[in-house]
């Protein structure tokens, strides 16, 4: 069993597991931090950006892709754990010869589609006049200024996929539900479990009859909108692959939400605008819910909230229809009947308005001060670029970063100098190290495998020994482009016996509680399933030609010799020999047993734990006599 690690990003994992003749890809996250190396894509021609000297507006966005560690066409299935971890799917399913199936839950697929749609839309609506790729040449890259020249593996950066590729990739997905058991070629069974992190997010169990591998990706134990995490089913794992822990282990999400609300209220009260760069799904639902409870108490009822994204409408609507994937509290609302999320009420009362882009209706409705939720959190493309340009000059305005995926300082770099206030309240509800240690104590896997970042404290806080995984035996760590041999051996395989065959068995008790029976059967193996079938009957002596021909295929069934069991007590054996007229018997002890020497007959009987040899000089009669004597001491069946 091997694990191929294709991504070094702990929260955007991509691993391939080879297990019992299947090749399973676990997630395909897309690390988009390389976009930070590019200039923002403005919706409106920005004189400031276009007048920058030197390397301006040269290329589209590109993304880091996988290394050539494994031939992607050999991947049988891809298991997706949440919508953030499937953003690289088109790169894998298209143009690599991939012919397998992708498994994901329905909300994951729908919201994943929204995220991809938004991404493609953001990139495609600002087409490039020209494109350059010469800079990818290592010799030229070396000449670039500092952060750019240090970027690694630039050659693997790719252009953003198209909507066509997205559709094609998504068509390869098969929908699954929590706890549904999916057979892969009869060899293994995979099961998604609720992970509590996002709508439809799952952890996966990959098991055969005798082995169990758990794959834990982005999970949360906090009470937010999704169904709570299923921990019990992770018990008794041989290997637990642990990825997707919180990216901000020192920040407590509750405190951050408080901070978010307070700063938002303060800014708006002073007549400033608030900009929240965010993804169109996920934490935004929780933020809107908090604001729903908060705005009246904070006197913000008259402040408009705008949600601008090509997929804003679908995201808000989708969240309301996936009731079965929500936490219990929200599920019960559906029976009242009420929409599970309170943002429906915000929309009804006109407090929250959503627009596909800032062109069109938004321009006429727009009034300040206001709060705007829009993408992309990298600040490199999407409507957020426009708002940064628009509001950046006033110190009354505030930009509040809630998504932890990008460094906010780097994201802000191309907008400097900036007068607006910047607040960093990363809200990451995924497991923190305290929760992980509790989880591991409860689930008790034999081995834990995790990205190497989790096995040491963060570099900036090297004294925080609490910010790492602490388990026994120590977790095995992996890094990008590493192949890990997972530390357990397969020992058993399950074989079924056909009922007729089982009927014909006659077990014999050889020790109290242990019965044995010999089986003669044909082993039939198909689709990784093994079945013992009754042997064909011996061929009829009289039969037509056809029959005779048919019986040619049947393997020969030899007459079975009985099997022996038991051990030979040497002293009694010697007595028995003497009784039968052998004299001058000598017994020698050896490491493995005894040697009985019949000096007169020049014969040697070697008695060992699992074999007995009679060595005599061409005297078959003697050998048979001795053999019969030996057999008397053994049980036959």
């Amino acid at each position: 069993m091997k694990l191929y690690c294709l991504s070094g990003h702990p929260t955007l994992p991509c691993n391939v597991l080879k297990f019992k003749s299947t090749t399973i890809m676990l997630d395909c996250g897309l690390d988009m931090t390389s976009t930070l190396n590019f200039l923002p894509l403005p919706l409106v021609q920005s004189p400031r950006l276009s007048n920058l000297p030197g390397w301006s507006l040269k290329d589209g966005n590109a993304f880091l892709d996988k290394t050539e560690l494994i031939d992607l066409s050999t991947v049988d299935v891809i298991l997706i754990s949440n919508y953030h971890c499937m953003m690289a799917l088109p790169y894998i399913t298209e143009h690599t010869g991939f012919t397998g199936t992708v498994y994901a839950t329905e909300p994951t697929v729908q919201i994943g589609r929204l995220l991809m749609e938004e991404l493609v839309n953001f990139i495609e609506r600002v087409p490039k006049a020209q494109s350059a790729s010469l800079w990818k040449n290592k010799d030229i890259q070396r000449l670039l200024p500092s952060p750019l020249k240090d970027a690694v593996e630039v050659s693997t950066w790719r252009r953003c996929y198209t909507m066509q590729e997205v559709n094609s990739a998504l068509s390869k997905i098969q929908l699954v539900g929590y706890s549904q058991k999916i057979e892969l070629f009869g060899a293994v069974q995979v099961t998604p479990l609720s992970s509590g992190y996002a709508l439809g997010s799952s952890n996966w169990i990959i098991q055969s009859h005798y082995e169990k591998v758990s794959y834990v990706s982005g999970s949360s134990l906090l009470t937010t909108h999704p169904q709570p995490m299923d921990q019990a089913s992770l018990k008794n794992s041989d290997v637990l692959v642990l990825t997707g822990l919180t990216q901000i282990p020192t920040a407590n999400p509750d405190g951050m939400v408080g901070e978010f609300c307070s700063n938002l209220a303060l800014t708006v009260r002073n007549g400033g605008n608030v900009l929240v760069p965010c993804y169109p799904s996920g934490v935004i639902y929780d933020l809107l819910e908090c604001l729903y409870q908060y705005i009246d108490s904070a006197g913000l009822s008259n402040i408009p909230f705008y949600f601008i994204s090509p997929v804003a409408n679908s995201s808000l609507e989708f969240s309301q229809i996936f009731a079965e994937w929500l936490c219990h509290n929200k599920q019960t609302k559906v029976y009242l009947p009420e929409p599970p999320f309170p943002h429906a009420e915000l929309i009804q009362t006109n407090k929250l308005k959503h627009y596909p882009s800032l062109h069109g209706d938004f321009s006429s409705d727009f009034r300040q001060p206001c709060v705007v939720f829009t993408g992309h959190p990298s600040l490199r493309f999407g409507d957020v670029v426009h708002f940064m340009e628009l509001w950046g000059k006033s110190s009354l305005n505030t930009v509040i970063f809630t998504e932890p995926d990008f460094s906010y300082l780097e994201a802000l770099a191309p907008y400097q100098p900036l007068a607006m206030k910047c607040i960093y309240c990363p809200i990451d509800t995924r497991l923190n190290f305290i929760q992980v240690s509790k989880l591991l104590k409860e689930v008790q896997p034999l081995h834990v495998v995790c990205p190497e970042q989790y096995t040491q404290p963060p570099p900036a806080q090297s004294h925080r020994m609490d910010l790492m995984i602490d388990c026994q035996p120590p977790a095995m760590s992996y890094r990008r482009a590493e192949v890990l041999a997972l530390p357990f051996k397969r020992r058993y395989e399950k074989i079924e016996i056909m009922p007729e065959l089982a009927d014909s068995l006659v077990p014999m008790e050889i020790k109290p509680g242990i019965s044995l029976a010999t089986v003669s059967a044909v082993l039939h193996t198909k689709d990784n399933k093994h079945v013992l079938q009754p042997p064909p009957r011996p061929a009829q002596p009289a039969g037509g030609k056809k029959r005779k021909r048919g019986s040619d295929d049947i393997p020969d069934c030899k007459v079975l010799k009985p099997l022996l069991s038991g051990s030979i007590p040497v002293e009694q054996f010697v007595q028995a020999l003497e009784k039968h007229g052998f004299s001058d018997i000598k017994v020698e002890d050896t490491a493995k047993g005894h040697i009985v020497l019949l000096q007169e007959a020049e014969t040697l009987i070697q008695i060992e734990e699992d074999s007995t040899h009679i060595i005599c000089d061409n005297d078959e009669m003697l050998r048979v006599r001795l053999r019969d004597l030996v057999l008397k001491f053994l049980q036959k069946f």
Partner: protein
Amino acid sequence: MDPECSQLLPALCAVLADPRQPVADDTCLEKLLDWFKTIADAGSSLLLLQENPCLVTLLCPVLKPQDLSPRVLAFLLRLAGILAAQEDCFQHLQQGDLLPRLFGEAGPLGGAAWTAPTVRSGWIQGLCSLTQHPSALCFLAHSGAVDTIFSLQGDSSLFVASAAGQLLVHILGLSMQAPAEGHPSLQPAHWPACAQKIVGHIEESLRATATPQVTQALNVLTTMFSHCHDPWTQVLWVHLSPLVACLLEKDPVPAAHSLVDLLLSVARSPVLSSSSCGLWDTLAQTLSRLRASQAGPLALGILKLQECPKALRAQAFAVLLQPLTCVLEATTQAPGLPGSVGGTADAPLTAGMLLPSKAACVGLLCQTLAHLELLQPLPQRPSPWPWAPLLSAAVTILRLCNGSATPTSDTGTHLCAFLAGCVRVQRAALDFLGTLSQGTGPQELVTQVFAILLEYLTSPDSSPTVLKKAFQATLQWLQSSPKPSGGGDLEPHAQLFLRELLPVLPKRLCSPCWDVRDSGLEFLTQTVRRWGGQAGFRHALLASEVPELTEQLLRDPESYVRASAVAAMGQLSSRGLHIIPASPGHPGAQQSLLEELLHILSTDSEGFPRRAVMQVFTQWLRDSHADVAADTEHFVARVLRVASQDLDWEVRAQGLELALVFLEQTLGQPSSSCPYAMTPPAAAPPSLVAQALQPFCRVQLFDFAFRALFDCDRPVAQKSCDLLLFLRAKTASYSDQQGSSSGPDVASLEAALQRWQAGDQGQPLGDLEPEAVVAVLRSLDLEGLRGALAESSDHAEQSPLSLLQDMLATAGILGENEADCY
């Protein structure tokens, strides 16, 4: 016993003795016992029995305990004990052979009823009341009860077990008093047999290997040494101390907590404080033998002792400080800094104690901090008190908790992992830091204190309770910072801090957590009260958004926050820090704060904000706030009108307080405010009084006060009574001169008051004349009313007669029901 009760008693006894009659509840039986106890204490129990033979009859069914419910059986045992406490009555009951049957082998002891803990408890309490005279001791000796008590020490019911221990102490004390009042024998071997038996049992238990037995013995001794200070106890201690010392040899020391309690009670006993007993050595040895978490309470106890050898105190203090020393050493570059806490010899040991588990570490640190917090204000605290190292330890712990400390050793790294984000330790450390503000520390440490407090107040990760503690500690530190010599109220240092804090406060006032907004407002109220007059502070506050936000919080959805906002606004306004925003877009701009508060008082659905408004108004009236002083009468009239309608009694009571302030301001201070004043209260000249009463009539103060006098809530009525008494004293001379007036006005007023008293408070009194009021004040029996109100509200229902009636009624009603069934 009054005759009515005597008449009812036989019936009640019959009910109690009848197993078919269920007894109402335990409280009735408790009250009944209390009543018998008062009767027995007041007179002769023998007489009581002779006059009420039904009582003896009642005690008899105990002979067939299976018929009785456990609670009645327990009641009877306790009643017998109370009666037999007097020797003659004891003899009387003995003659009837009743006592052995109740308390001896023939009684419930060992029967089925004994399985009920109530019965066992009743048995012990009965014996405890009974054991008051030598005859009782003989009885105990003969009945073999003492052995039963021994076994009850290990009872499954904690109440029974603890009562058994106390009973043993009681018996021992009595038996030692009995033989001779003179000097006790130096050898327990010469003590009375009963005492010897008990002491022997204790010795045996102390030698036992099972911890529960040792604990029992130690608990008995602890009770004895803390309640009995006769000379013989010293003899006993000298006799037993070697056994106690033996306990210290064991590893681990058994029953450590009980041992600590015992040693401390011995050390506190006035007869034993001499050093001849070797107590100090034992204490010192115990300190060094116990684990850190067990030694802490002992060390604190030793340090609280009035007299104690210096060396022992030093050792105890070192033990107490050990965990903090360990924390400091784990985080400082060079171990053993001159400023570090206490000695360092034991630190590695404590490091071992701190580190095994998070729970142990957190528990020990919280305990240590709480102990030091208790010790610091005591006069006998160690001197010099190590302000600086304690400060730096508290700051270090807080830094470990928020992850900003840099550990210098493995211990430190572990501590950091244990304490990061631990709310319990944060709270304890902030509390402790707050108390440390009483002392003085080096300037650089004070800077660190303010820095860490600011970190906690700013951090989004501080939990609401931690934040509250941080605000409290901050206030304490600000209050204690020394005034600068050059004038001004705040030390420049603290002033700078406040300036840094003010930008944080708005964020807290906007928090989605109501408790954070609440503690932020409380902090604001306190700081404004203290530094509202200081120019630098005023300037910074006015430049911030705080006053505006505070006003917005008057409309907060949470009532506690509204209440705190009311208090804060009241304070801001008193200090002239409430500026009405001039912006035309502001809807509340035209409305003054007074109007807004009145609006809250009349419309808020919760009591807290309304109470807060009344407090602010009272304070404003006291301070002659500008808005109030403009037209005080009008103000008082409006407030009283609204307050009188309020459903919350505290609001009405506060309204009376406001009325009293108004009275005082008009008439002068009440004489009772200074009971030791030499000058007799000078009554005002009559003409002046009549004049003075006019405004009260105009603001309808009397209407409010009389209404309150018959308020269904006792505190309101009491307060009103006090107010009217004060008023009557003030107007005494006036009415004397006027003589009794009986005009039509007075008659109608009295009639109205009578209706009110009867519960019909619908009609207002209308306009009143001062003369009529004075006349009514004289005619009302205010003293009588005050006396009646001073009684607890259920005094009428508490009489023994009503108790008996109640119990009989309950039984009677049950009887009727039974009849209905047929």
